[in-house]
């Protein structure tokens, strides 16, 4: 653990010294292949951890969490492109938790620097560094990294398997491998006859894998095309298995009630009434809460309702105002980071007009549709966990600890996720299930949280505040000096994973603010860490979700102060810095017919954020209808270099936008008496079909690097909406959610 912790701390928050140390070590270590987690039986060939073929079927492994973003399909398409199979010929599985499934892109994302200005060389360094992800077995789905991670590696896996199958056929036929072709799951002999891959599996299994060059993009037949999702039939017929759908012989159903004062102890409880309730089989003291095991999930939840608890005091201020006072005090401390400091922000350029604004954003819950759940079975020396999760190797490690086992005694099965959004990078639900199962060896137990338990025991998007100061002159932004204060999700998450806190500048804390592609000559961004023990974590787009709001609300305020059209103001700033950012702005201007569309009773707002390698611009249109503000239209343009599956990219863009709009309009987590006040969806509303605007998406492919898709749609949504509401009402939203200050159509 200490070794992993040390490496993790060094690499996750890359500082320059750690980078050097990591590269030297990593170069040696990364060269050693991780053990292949696939254990082929007789007649099966596992060419690499991603392709397995037997005499009946071809199985591809997409060891990333399928939480809606379509990773299973696109990941499989990358392999299939080189393997020469069609997606309807293969089965796609998630596979086990395994070292070989490390995320090579995740750590590269931790590199200092803005991202969009990276040279080919620094992308190469990022890729090499990324292999450090392997050093602590970081099989993680998050940070919009899956395609950057898999783009080359999976095509290589497919190409190698294809050539090895050809080698087997060449030996059988007594011809040269170069004389063979492949097509739709078969090797084509020189005489035109076909040998199916499945027929060659046994012979190929004995061969050393053959490596091959990757095809030219001009030859691609799957990549860049719309693919039917591999999970679509199952998800349309109720036959997809989510975490809550795992059913095992003799399985019991359980639920938990943990201290609603998060992180606090439980002084005691009285379960005498619960013990006699129907279906109840066991009440388990978990130290900071209680689990009830029953014959039915609902009966377990009912029994929890009947338990009287004596909860300890919260380790953080018990009321929302006091929490935010603590966040505000962080502005007085030395900044944790100043990741951009261009020009000199201390001097107001002569003749410039100063603009200032303070903003405040609430804590937010993830509110996945599927509440937290996991199933566990402890048998002699073996723990099996079934969990919808984004981090199977961390689950294996933490559940092993909880059961007193070694990590290799734990098998983790990753089901479909009923939403992730970052919540399922945490492992608490799996650890609770393990602890319950440990009390009932030999009996599988499924632990499902109530919605109320889920909403009040999240790792929240941190509440955040900003103090922005800028200046405009001759219609241009000439100065931007921002300070952001919030808790660090990164340090907290690292502490939970490794037991050691983080150090050094936290890039995630200021992402979306310091690294925006705007040419502002005097541009500084400082991050102040609030010292609070409210549990916080990664929420779709993480720091970009609050920093993007600060930046793009303030850019709008500067545009208005400069007496400029907010969209033209941005295009000018972006054009001088990075063309793809200007490109997405121009695209939404055209799509929305920005200038001609304006009319009384209608407001238009724009925002552009560069995040996870992808610039995304959104225009939101609102109208006043019957005295209420209604979202009527939305236009989105993104540029991720190569759109591997354009229809899925479109889905991710509007999905990300909806997530951001829901939070902007209705989302807030507040505290009273140390407990989260919001309990269920009526207290934490979201966009619904009748409040959803019409949306149009344009996917551009002009930039040089492959950007992410799952998260970049989220950050521009809130500021674009707030800017539209300003355009309509003349009133600036400097805090969210908007429902407190505006009469929204609901």
């Amino acid at each position, binding site marked *: 653990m200490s070794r992993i912790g040390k490496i993790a701390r060094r690499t996750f928050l890359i500082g320059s010294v750690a980078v050097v140390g990591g590269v030297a070590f990593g170069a040696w270590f990364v060269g050693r292949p991780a053990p292949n987690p696939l254990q082929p039986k007789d007649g099966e060939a596992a060419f690499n951890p991603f392709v397995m073929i037997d005499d009946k079927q071809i199985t591809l492994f997409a060891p990333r969490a399928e*939480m*809606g*973003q379509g990773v299973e399909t696109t990941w499989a398409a990358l392999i299939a492109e080189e393997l020469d199979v069609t997606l309807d010929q293969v089965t796609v599985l998630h596979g086990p938790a395994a070292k070989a499934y490390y995320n090579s892109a995740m750590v590269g994302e931790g590199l200092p620097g803005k991202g969009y200005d990276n040279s080919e060389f620094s992308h190469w360094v990022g890729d090499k560094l990324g292999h450090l992800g392997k050093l602590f077995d970081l099989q993680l789905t998050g940070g919009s990294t899956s395609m950057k991670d898999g783009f080359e590696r999976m095509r290589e896996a497919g190409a190698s398997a294809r050539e090895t199958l050809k080698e087997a056929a060449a030996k059988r036929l007594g011809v040269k491998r170069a004389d063979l072709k492949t097509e739709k799951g078969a090797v084509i002999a020189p005489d035109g006859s076909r040998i199916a891959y499945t027929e060659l599996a046994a012979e190929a299994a004995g061969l050393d894998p053959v490596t091959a060059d990757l095809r030219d993009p001009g030859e691609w037949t799957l990549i860049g095309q719309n693919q*039917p*999702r591999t*999970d*679509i*039939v*199952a*998800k*349309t*017929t*109720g*036959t*997809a*298995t*989510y975490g*809550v759908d795992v*059913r095992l012989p003799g399985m019991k*159903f359980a639920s938990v009630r943990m201290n609603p004062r998060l992180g606090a102890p439980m002084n005691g409880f009285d379960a005498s009434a619960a013990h006699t309730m*129907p*279906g109840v089989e066991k009440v388990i003291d978990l130290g900071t809460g209680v689990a009830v095991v029953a*014959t*039915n*999930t*609902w*009966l377990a*939840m009912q029994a929890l309702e009947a338990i009287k608890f004596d909860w300890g005091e919260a380790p953080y201020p018990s009321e929302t105002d006091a929490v935010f006072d603590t966040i505000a005090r962080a502005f007085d401390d030395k900044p944790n980071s100043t990741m951009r400091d261009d020009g000199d922000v201390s001097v107001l350029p002569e003749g410039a007009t100063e603009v200032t604004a303070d903003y405040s954003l609430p804590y937010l819950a993830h*509110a*996945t*549709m*599927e*509440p937290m759940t996991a199933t566990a079975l402890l048998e002699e020396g073996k723990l099996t966990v079934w969990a919808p999760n984004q981090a199977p190797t961390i689950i294996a490690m933490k559940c092993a600890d909880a059961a007193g086992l070694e990590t290799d005694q734990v098998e983790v099965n990753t089901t*479909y*996720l*009923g*939403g*992730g*959004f970052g919540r399922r990078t945490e492992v608490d639900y799996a650890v609770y299930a393990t602890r319950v199962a440990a009390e009932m060896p030999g009996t599988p137990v499924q632990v499902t949280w*109530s*919605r109320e338990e889920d909403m009040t025991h999240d790792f929240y998007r941190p509440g955040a505040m900003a103090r922005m100061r800028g200046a405009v002159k001759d219609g241009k932004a000439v100065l931007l000096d921002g300070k952001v204060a919030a808790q660090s999700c990164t340090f907290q998450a690292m502490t939970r994973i490794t037991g050691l806190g983080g150090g050094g500048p936290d890039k995630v804390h200021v992402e979306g603010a310091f690294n925006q592609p705007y040419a502002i000559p005097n541009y500084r961004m400082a991050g102040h860490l609030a010292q609070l023990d409210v549990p916080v974590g990664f929420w779709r787009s993480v720091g970009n979700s609050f920093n993007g709001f600060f930046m793009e609300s303030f850019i709008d305020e500067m545009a208005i102060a400069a007496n400029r059209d907010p969209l033209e103001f941005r295009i000018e700033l972006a054009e001088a810095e990075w063309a793809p950012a200007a490109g997405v702005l121009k695209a939404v201007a055209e799509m929305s017919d920005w200038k001609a569309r304006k009319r009384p009773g209608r407001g238009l707002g724009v925002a552009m954020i560069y995040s996870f390698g992808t610039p995304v611009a959104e225009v939101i249109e609102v109208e006043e209808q019957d005295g209420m503000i209604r979202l009527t239209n939305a236009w989105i343009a993104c540029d991720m270099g190569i759109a591997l599956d354009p*229809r*899925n990219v479109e*889905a991710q863009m*509007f*999905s990300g*936008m*909806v*997530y951001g709009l*829901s939070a902007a309009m209705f989302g807030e987590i507040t505290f009273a008496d140390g407990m989260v006040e919001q309990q*269920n*969806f*009526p207290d934490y509303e*979201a*966009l*619904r*079909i*009748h409040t*959803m605007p019409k*949306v149009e998406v344009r996917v551009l492919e002009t930039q040089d690097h492959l950007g992410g898709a799952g998260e970049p749609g989220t950050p521009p949504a809130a500021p674009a909406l707030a800017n539209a509401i300003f355009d309509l009402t003349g009133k600036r939203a400097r805090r969210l959610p908007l429902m407190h200050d505006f009469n929204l159509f609901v």
Partner: protein
Amino acid sequence: MSKTLTINGKTHTVDLPGDVPLLWVLRDEVGLTGTKFGCGVAACGACTVQIDGEAVRSCQVPLEDVWGEVTTIEGHGTPDALSALQEAWITHQVAQCGYCQSGQIMQAAALLAQTPRPTDAQIDEAMSGNLCRCGTYPRIRAAIHDAANRMEG
């Protein structure tokens, strides 16, 4: 209490307290897991099934009150025998995480049974109780219109 239910055309006898919601009878007793638990308070629609063709939130129907024949997503159509609605759902690639889609489809099926050619406003009214955190609403709307065309054709 012991009660016999007709679910997707088959009878099932269950022995459970009468206040156990239909949702949990389906999921934890009968083993029909296509119907999902989302909120337990009729605020999300993930648990939507039909009783005698009427869309209901199964988390709010106690076992003792089940008044008719229950149809769940498993009874609506199967991978080998998709309904026209499910075909439209697949054509439009509606699902993302997919967790809410059983409920969405059962609600939409009830809408189309009553209103074969729904307007956008009628879709809004019928479907507004079904939450989707992935925001698949544009494709849900498109799939319902498409299914209406297919079913009429």
